[in-house]
């Protein structure tokens, strides 16, 4: 009788142990912290992932076309200068090395905005799909820094006036919607910095300049 009770005790403890091992392994495997998200946040996360996947699929389709053309040209023993120039032009536009045109929005900033808030605005524009951004006529690229306290903001070491414009090329409707949505950056700034005003205007055609920075790295080498 006593032996049976001991065996039952071990069985019960082993069962709980097994259950916990499985739970722990699943938590480690997903490793994603998704368990801490609300349904609403998860929905936003899934929408973000879907957008990222769509973009990557389009990129893959474009790259496959380029690859097929390159391979076909090589088989024929020719190189298309036009194709290389188009690709160069497109990558230079993306990187900020070339001036670009397109639809988008301008955000007129008035009042003593600070660097971190302006950085939040840039981040919001990028999140909404902005393809090119300029502040006060300075193209924002990888490496551009926005600094300074209220009313004392600098972009790439150039001080900004009391009022200036942030211009962004992208889907004008999407950009406007993202900035002006309830709880978006315009509302946040209105709540936290009442002296600062952000006015968003959709624009049919913007022209943004090229950066003046040298973006080719000196301390890093290609790792091919």
């Amino acid at each position, binding site marked *: 009788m006593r032996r049976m009770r001991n065996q039952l005790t071990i069985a019960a403890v082993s069962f709980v142990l097994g259950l916990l091992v499985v739970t722990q392994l699943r938590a480690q495997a997903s490793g994603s912290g998704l368990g801490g998200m609300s349904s609403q946040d998860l929905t936003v996360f899934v929408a973000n992932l879907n957008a990222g996947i769509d973009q990557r699929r389009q990129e893959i389709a474009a790259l496959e076309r380029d690859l097929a053309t390159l*391979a076909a040209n090589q088989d024929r023993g020719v190189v298309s200068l036009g194709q290389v120039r188009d690709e160069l032009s497109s*990558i230079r*536009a993306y990187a900020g090395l070339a001036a670009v045109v397109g639809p988008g929005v301008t955000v007129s900033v008035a009042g003593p905005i600070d660097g971190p808030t302006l950085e939040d605005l840039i981040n919001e524009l990028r999140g909404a799909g902005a393809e090119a951004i300029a502040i006060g006529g300075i193209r924002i690229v990888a490496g551009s820094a926005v600094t300074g306290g209220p009313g004392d903001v600098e972009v790439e070491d150039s001080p900004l006036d009391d009022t200036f414009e942030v211009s962004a090329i992208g889907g004008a409707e999407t950009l406007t919607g993202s900035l002006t949505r309830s709880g978006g950056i315009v509302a946040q700034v209105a709540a936290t910095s009442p002296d600062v005003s952000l006015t968003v205007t959709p624009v049919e055609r913007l022209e943004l300049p090229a950066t003046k920075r040298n973006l080719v790295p000196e301390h890093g080498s290609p790792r091919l």
Partner: protein
Amino acid sequence: MAGTGLRAWAGHRIRSIPSWQITLGLALLGLGFLIAAQLATERPRIRYTTQERAPLIETAIDLQESQATLSAQVLQLRDQILALEQQGQGTNAAIRELNDELEDARLAAGLIPLRGTGVVFQLEDSVEPAGAVENERDYLVTARDLRTMVEELWLAGAEAIAINGERVVPTTSIIDIGGLILANSAYLSPPYQISAIGSEDLYEQVVSSPGFADLVRARQDAYGIRIGYLEPEQVDIPAFAGTVTLRNARPAPSEAPAAGDGG
């Protein structure tokens, strides 16, 4: 004699413990360890229990895997194109020149992985308990913390930056969704490692900046966010695996290339 006595005592004790007690003891030890591990895994994120979350979580996990596969495919195709371009340039000087320009443009756009001197900063959630009236989220690393770190690195002269392997490019947004941080629409799992290539004194440049001192004061000193760093001999920064295809922007007319073919 004393030794003989001790062995006899020990032998007697071991024989007197039934094997089931040892098994049970070990199982309970494992149980305790797992309960502690489970609690540690859950802390400090808030947990929700609604049923509709399970399919959403599964969808998110599947989509993350798809995104990672597609990113790898993008990088592979770019490598194949680069290899073909280099093969095809032959002795044509014009093509060589264009390909050199193309490589510079790709370097500027973050499409080529880099290796060089630099620094790796690591940001981790606080392990300090939040007070009763405090917001638990203040004790977690936020997207703004990462953006501040990136900004300070650019200011200190960094040439290329990646966060947990996601290259920071002109279109990179770093955002909070719930308790998660996304960069280039990819989920970043803590701890957050911000790798940067730059001059050999990049670390000194960063830590001596007022902006970094503000970050340490506001996040490490106030909430226990852990900020560490490494200075490996070489820092590796991967290529950007997202899209560089512009849908709305196009080169300004003055920048448009002349069309032409050569053989």
